């Protein structure tokens, strides 16, 4: 074990959430739950990234009273990256949900294994 586990507990929790999301993606049979797992996975990466930019005791990077010293504000880069990331994850979940609707219209089930079983039984 490295030296910084106690100090980095927030990141450790983010990592555990990443694993939980991934487990949902691999193990859940229901497609909607898979999508939720995917969202959890993305959110945990963003949490991890935002914790990178956080500096104890410093403020939001919005210039107040003309103070422009580095020591006054936190790192603005991770916040910008996370903003981009959130947009991407919204578009991806909307796409996945619409795929879910179409799939359910066609096969009346949300279980991918069952769908592929049916496909093989139909001999398609």
């Amino acid at each position, binding site marked *: 074990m490295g030296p910084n586990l106690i100090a980095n507990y927030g990141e450790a929790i983010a990592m555990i959430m990443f694993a939980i999301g*991934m487990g949902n*993606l691999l193990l859940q049979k229901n497609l909607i739950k898979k999508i939720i797992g995917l969202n959890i*996975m993305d959110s945990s990466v963003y949490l*991890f990234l935002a914790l990178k930019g956080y500096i104890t005791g410093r403020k939001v990077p919005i210039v107040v009273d003309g103070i422009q010293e580095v020591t006054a504000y936190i790192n603005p880069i991770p916040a910008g990256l996370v903003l981009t*990331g959130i947009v991407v994850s919204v578009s991806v979940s909307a796409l996945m949900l619409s*795929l879910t609707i179409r*799939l359910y219209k066609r096969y009346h089930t949300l279980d991918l294994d069952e769908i592929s079983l049916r496909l093989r039984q139909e001999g398609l």
Partner: protein
Amino acid sequence: MQFVQNFPFFCIILTLFSGSVCAVLKSKPARIVNTILITIVGILNACVLAFEIKTGESYTYMMGHFPAPWGNEIRIGVLEAGMALFFCVIMLLSMLGGKHKVLTEIAKEKQNLYYVLVNLLLSSLIALVYTNDIFTAYVFVEINTISACGLIMIRQNGRTIEAAVRYMIMSLLGSGLLLMGICMLYDITGHLLMSNIKQTLEATYASGKLDVPLLVSVAFMCIGLAIKSALFPFHAWLPDAYGYSTVSSAAILSSLVSKGYIFLLIKIIYRVVGFEIFRDTHIINVLFIFGLCGMIFGSVSAIRENDIRRMIAFSSVAQIGYIYMGIGLGTEVGMAASIFHILSHAATKSMLFIAAIGLTEVSDGSRHFIKLTGAGFRNKIAGLTFMAGSLSMVGVPIFAGFISKLLFAQAATVNKGKMLPVLICLGISTILNAIYFMKTVIRIYTPIDDKTFEENKCSVIKARQVPLYTVTCILFIIVNVVLGTMSDPIMDLITKGLSMFA
């Protein structure tokens, strides 16, 4: 700064802009815009390539008013320009060859949206090729993923929707891993620009410690991109996605989308991590073993298929195994061979898909082997193209596949430890390739009698009736033969480009 140096930026902006333009146009103008756009982008990239060969130096292009670590940046070298040009050529040929299928298989009011997807896919590919910033690469990887999903499910039946869902799940898992790797790399180096990350990493490496976070982040990025480009254990989504989508999509997906990710991986290896550090991490051995397994397993699965499109799709798995095997050799020569194989496989696989559609058209739209008997006589130009593609896949001289296999064998002899497994797998894989491709070629050139002709509802298409398709097929064969016969200058360019990467 010369005016030519602006061209890569023009390419990216033009393709992005034309995406939103096509959304408001009707389907026919959208198609014309798309064709003209791909041609223009190809010409611009050819100018950039000529400029690069003349000067022999790479340059960076600021995206905005602020220099490198603060603003975004793209970087142009010989390899990037050549790759972008090649992608444009293959995309243009695939779109032309599958045009008549797009017209019939996609609902009338949704056709212009198809061209939106294709334009944005092209823009993301060019941006992936040129970018010098690792987070920009992530954003464009997402555009690439979503538009590829759109390309799969635009022909709407149950199979394609299911394939798209599988594709999206695997791809998004890959994107998540890639993003995680990028975040960790950002944490330990503090930069997002490729060249700066490399400088910082080299400084830490010189001090003699190769720490855990670096290893984990590189592993995550590699696995993420491997999942997205369908390396062997992660290929479950591939056959359905390539087998049931409309033919232009299948050709573009197999030859461009997965190759874009592999090119990004090579770029990360060279420009972000550094080749020496990457070689010392042992991740290279994992890629090597998976590549070897993929070569054998893909070919075995292809033999067992009796659907021609799925067979070609499984053959893709094998060929992607070749590419990863070349990367895994861990030598400059192996990497150059891999890049040449990216070119040759992209040219050959799209050609096979386009030829296969010609063969199935004359057999009542059925893709089963039995129905395809004698299809080579009924659509001669498609049969000829399919035969050329098969010969290239098997590795017959004067075609591109032969050169890439030769290069792999040469690269293997440099590396003493990995020589034997590479040569054995190369041999076995070539034999397996020969079995299933020659089986198909013999099948399509077996004559049938009139009774079966009637029973199978066969038809005859002459080369004159489909002039566009004929021209595309001939151009495909010419591209393949050019790659196969003029390999020396191309290899020179690749080695030069790789040395410019560093």
